[in-house]
């Protein structure tokens, strides 16, 4: 598995320097507005290296939370620290954004660019140094398995391939924080298996936050899970703890689905099934 990837790259001093922060992402009482609603209401996070799943019903505020972590939205209240630095201020943002990778839910792209050109462009935008760009792009393309379509235009790709190209642009700058919003949408089962492997590999040294509806991916690949509902945190723990929360009486076709419904029901008992 790891053996196919032989590309070696030089690390620079910044990467081997000891970190000055305890958690890559730290939030206390985070509140974020989406439009006029307070979509994220009082979320506390301490996320380090690993794959952190984000689950919740539709409209729970998952996407808003991810966007706040990606520095797209400004928090309306509470504290947010990324890589030890408080979010806000121009130069701080630039330094942060060099080390963040983000895949939005509505992933837009330049249709006329080829895959390689698009990822190169995103690498340049994230200030990967010019001489490293071709190698980094090639590595990213091979990791997500688009090497044979790398020189085709984006508009000729299928939906799943476009999603994979989006993941590639998120990882091309070897970010410390990787934020993926519905990354497995449109991937076929074999691709999803490869993607889970990739997630595990990335999670060994990166803080990955994956927001998804596919609970199986969460069960297999994530080191811990957060469940939020209506902007408020409901559960924080490992996938096995999530499975343990459910019982035979809860709706669901797999242990983790039953745990999910059980926790939601406990959180909002008067809501009924959603």
């Amino acid at each position, binding site marked *: 598995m790891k053996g196919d990837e032989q590309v070696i790259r030089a690390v620079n001093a910044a990467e081997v320097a000891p970190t000055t922060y305890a958690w890559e992402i730290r939030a206390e009482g985070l509140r974020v507005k989406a439009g006029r609603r307070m979509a994220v209401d009082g979320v506390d996070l301490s996320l380090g290296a690993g794959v952190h799943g984000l689950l919740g019903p539709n409209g729970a505020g998952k996407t808003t939370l991810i966007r706040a972590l990606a520095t797209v939205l400004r928090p309306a209240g509470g504290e947010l620290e990324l890589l030890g630095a408080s979010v806000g201020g121009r130069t701080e943002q630039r330094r942060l954004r060099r080390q963040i990778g983000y895949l939005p839910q509505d992933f837009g792209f330049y249709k*006329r660019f080829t895959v390689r050109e698009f990822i190169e462009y995103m690498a340049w*935008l994230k200030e990967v140094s010019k001489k490293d760009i071709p190698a980094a792009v090639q590595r990213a393309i091979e990791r997500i398995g688009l090497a044979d379509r790398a020189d085709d235009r984006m508009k000729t790709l299928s939906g799943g391939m476009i999603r994979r190209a989006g993941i590639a642009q998120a990882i091309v700058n070897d970010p410390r924080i990787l934020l993926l919003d519905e990354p497995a949408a449109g991937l076929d089962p074999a691709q999803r298996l490869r993607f889970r492997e990739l997630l595990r590999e990335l999670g060994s040294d990166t803080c990955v936050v994956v927001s998804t509806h596919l609970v199986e991916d969460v069960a297999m690949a994530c080191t811990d899970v957060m469940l939020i509902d209506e902007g408020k945190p409901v559960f924080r723990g490992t996938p096995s703890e999530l499975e343990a929360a459910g019982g035979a009486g809860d709706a669901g076709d797999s242990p983790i689905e039953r745990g999910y419904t059980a926790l939601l029901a406990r959180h909002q008992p008067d809501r009924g099934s959603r």
Partner: protein
Amino acid sequence: MIRTELRRSAAPWAAVLIVGIAAVLLFAFSGPWWKGGGAWNREWTGLARWERNTLMLVWPFAIGVGALQGLRDHRSGMAELLTTTSRPRWRRAAQTAGAMAIAMTAGYLVIFAIGAVQVAGNATYFHWGWAPILLVGVLSLIGAAWLGMGIARLAPSVLTPPLLAVTALAVAVVTQVSPVGGSLLSGSVPDRIAWLSPVQDGPDDAFTSVAGRMNLGQGLWFLGMAVTGFVLLAATRAATKLLAVVPLLAGAAVALPLLPATVAQAQEVDQGAVALVCADGLPRVCVTNVHQEFLGALVQPAREALALLGKVPGAPTSVEEVTTGEPFYGRRPVVAGVVQIDFDDFDLASGLRSTTDPDRLRRYLVAGAGTPTCYGRVEMDENYERERAARAVSAAGLTGELRPLSGSGSAYFRNELETLARPAWESFRVLPAAEQIARLSAMRVAAETCRGGTLEILTNGVAR
């Protein structure tokens, strides 16, 4: 990185279409840019100015393409992803804007190169005066494209490109300045404002160039436009976007006082072009620098013509080319003692070209006993035809036989000869020599002062 933009954005389309449209316009249609000394493929300055004239079509197109390019981020839905990247917005904007600028410049230069190949074959006089004209043209395209990109970023609607293109077209139409001065919408747009459009009429002759202050003023205006467009493209805060209009206003404020107030001030005489080049020996035969390749062919017939003209008292003693274009009405001031020649005159051109009729050039020079026509470029009425007949008869009187002044192949020229000139010649020919000389002399006096009635003097001895 800019190579990707050059390949994948709207830039290459822009360049190809600029070249295509301008080339079709210049090649396919026989407009004023094919005619005369000011033709687009004759002289360098003429080429530059006629290329500016094609901006009538290309400039609104440039702003429309810029707007289409500026919509790209909005249409592709990439806006959110782009805000999470670290490179500052102006760097990103510089890539796209730079690619567009390269494409515009390349397209414009290609057209110039196509014309330059022809001019290099035709022209012998070279002067750098065309360079500022070309530069202002390039600046106007870049300014328009960047402004289009900036405005489309501000207002990313599908209606923005057509709105901008149509507005630019309206500006180009409204600011057309007619050659006799004043805009086509007579009086409603002062000339100074009209020069804010990059479209320029081509020259009528090879001797004038664009005044320096006009190039400078227009250059500064388009520079301001380009800066405004770029700031709009690169601005992240609302305050900066508001401030973006400042370069545009500053450009206008600086340019308007600089720009000439009238059409006459906008042109200047190209001193290098009108300098006279003369053949060795006497009598003097001189042409301007622009046409010096014709001097060799002109010398012998010119001196023979002067010898023939010597039969009539008070004859001119030299042959010189005129240094201004032919006016629309009336004629240029006459210089005493000089036969003026105009290389735009079709009779002279016909004489220079003719291989079957070597005396035609000499006939042209002695016509009217060495005086030029009294009528301007657009005066082609009955008086003009009678004067032409008189010129033919006077040429016949000096050379001994009646031949048409221009090619006898055309029915028009044969006709004009037969109806008016032939009867006059018949009656003139039988007169005694002294009477002929007297009438020619009287005719010349009348022609010099443009009193009219030259044909009557030749036939009846007295003016009407």
